[in-house]
């Protein structure tokens, strides 16, 4: 997972395009090979981000908002760390993770809400009021 700055990196758009094309060719909605998987929606006033964090306690999730970027960090212990465990199969990935999601506008930091239910984290992020488009009335003279 990389956070590229579109202004500094002219290749960012190409990389994004390539990734989008790969996703299209692989079949829409095929799960990405990242943890956690993220879906996000946005309109002009608010956004919703959902992340699949099975097995992650709420206390092990840390969210930060800076400008137009939401960062989801956390730690997942995939398996009990008990001694004398005879492991037959280990597929669930564990350890620290970090994802950042860039929204189309700046976020009102104070009004971000987050909840975790059944291993899915849902974050609602309102747009910062000062960045919302404002209609300017035209006065007739």
């Amino acid at each position, binding site marked *: 997972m990389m956070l590229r700055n579109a202004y500094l990196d002219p290749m960012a758009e190409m990389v994004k395009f390539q990734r989008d094309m790969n996703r299209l060719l692989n079949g829409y909605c095929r799960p990405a090979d990242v943890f956690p998987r993220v879906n*996000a929606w946005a309109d002009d006033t608010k956004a919703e981000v959902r992340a*699949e*964090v099975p*097995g992650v306690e709420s206390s092990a999730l840390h969210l930060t908002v800076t400008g137009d970027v939401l960062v989801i960090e956390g730690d997942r212990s995939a398996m009990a760390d008990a001694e004398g465990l*005879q*492991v037959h199969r280990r597929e*669930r990935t564990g350890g620290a993770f970090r994802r950042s999601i860039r929204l189309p506008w700046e976020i009102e930091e104070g009004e971000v809400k987050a909840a975790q239910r*059944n*291993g*899915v984290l849902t974050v609602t992020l309102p747009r910062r009021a000062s960045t919302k488009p404002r209609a300017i009335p035209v006065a007739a003279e």
Partner: protein
Amino acid sequence: MTTATELKATDPRPVEATRDRPVHIPDADIFEADGAIVVLADMPGLDDRAVTVELENDVLTIRGRAPEAGVEPAQPIVREFGERDYERSFAINTEIDREHIRAQMRNGVLKVTLPLAAEVKPRQIAVESH
């Protein structure tokens, strides 16, 4: 002497889905601890009512039916997962105490605990004389 425990995962049976959504094989951990085999499977978004666990003969099958997705809240900007059902079967090649199997859902992870059957004790068979 403990019985060798070998678990093999098998792909879901090639069944035709009646619902128009993909069926995924959930990631799973399997380990043996405290006299039980424990299966952990990631099924994010599902609660305990959406999951079934079945042990038929030597095949443990776990299934999860994701709830219907509601209306999307807005225009998608990132899309890495879709709604999907889960199914996976495991061959259990060891004696299980079938009366005491437990399954629980927590934070989108299914945990199935299969206690090993008490070891078969050697029995002395008395030989009768006529």
